[in-house]
């Protein structure tokens, strides 16, 4: 478990650094996204947006986790509770 925690912390801080030092070692040609910015209108369509109302989905997620034994990997967070 200790190894997992250390690996996780290392991973976290390397992420924070953005690995800028490594990028300086070798200059790659600038990346051209295969989905251009002007093609991403669909992703911001009202039907695709997930965050406009956060409470309804959070509440449903809360009910699911309280009424079952599983949790995690859903992208939502919350505090602990004695909701039994």
């Amino acid at each position: 478990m200790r190894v997992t925690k250390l690996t996780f912390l290392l991973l976290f801080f390397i992420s924070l650094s953005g690995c800028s030092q490594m990028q300086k070692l070798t200059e790659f040609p600038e990346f051209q996204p295969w989905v251009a910015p002007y093609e991403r209108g669909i992703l911001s369509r009202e039907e695709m947006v997930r965050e406009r109302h956060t409470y309804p989905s959070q509440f449903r997620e809360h009910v699911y986790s309280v009424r079952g034994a599983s949790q995690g990997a859903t992208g939502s967070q919350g505090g602990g509770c004695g909701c039994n």
Partner: protein
Amino acid sequence: MVVTRLLNALGVSSQKLVASTFLQFIVLLSYLSGSVVAATLPKDKVETSYHYYDGGGVEVTGPALFVRKSVADNVSISGSYYVDEVSSASIDVQTYASPYKEDRTEYSLSADYIDQDAKLSFSYVNSDESDYQSDTFHFDYVEEYFGGLTTTSIGYSSGSDDVLSNTSDFSDTAKHDFYRIGFSQVVLPELVLRANYEHISDKGFLGSPYRKSVINGVLFDENLPRTRRSNALSIGGDYFIETWSTAIKAQYRYFSDTWDVKADDFRVSVTKSLKTHWIIEGWVRYYGQSSASFYQDQFSSVLTYRSRDKELSDFDSVSMGLGVEYLFQDTKWFKAPSLALGSEWVRYQYNDFYEYQNGDFNQNNNKQLYEFDATIAYVSFSTTF
């Protein structure tokens, strides 16, 4: 299975392997991704909602309020207030205690900081009940690569709980650690794929001071292990069908833990715009889990670990929901205001948890598998400014 055994033989845990693989993956992305995109702060926003749950003798209602405001070019702060007003006469309460009413109040404070293509978030959540107090800290780091097509996230949460009892001087504590990583990829202009993994470590008192186990028809205090480690992995995607103005979102999650609980969670939703201002959404969910190794409806002998918690039993659940949303015109003060209403029907069917007539656990001929329907409903108003 073969891979897992090989890794175990080499002394490499699956959690370590996932973390190491993700580390290499992030390094590779940073190495290859030459272009930098500017991450944006979440918009200033107000959201208020009212939620409702009714099922299995439990009713929960309450308001919620969320406010977020940017305080600098690259910093925003937010706060939230959330209340659960609980009225419970569940099958557990009817068996072991008396119906009760109580409130749970939750406050949270958050801050987001952006730097070029990355966002760092920190939040604190306090939850307060008469017999349960919890403090949780969250750290999350999100970074975009390849012109914003690829997003990785990494996060950690730490929670400390005080567990009390309203009927005795019972007092104990619990600690929870959450380690999570996530990945999303814009594959096509109309398709985004996602994957999330979370490892959770729980220590301390992980049960309920009220709940009982049943041994040969007699009630005894339940006793759960004081440690638990869980792994959850979800994969999913959002796809937009332009000719129908419809988005289809699907997600599957697999969960397993050291208590032998295994769970499958599958969800699909369809979101469609109607005319200019209306959006309608329908969703279905299937959930099934196996029981914990120390769960039994009735024990025939006194075991060290024992529980009759139906949430730890083998059960299946299906649900269907429908929501509508109205998008108002922008005003001088409010941008993209919208009102959302929705309701969900949930069916729980237990495969090894019985309802006994008159609560008499010796009436084995008059017992039936427990099942109940629940209703979830909400109304929510949201606007940016």
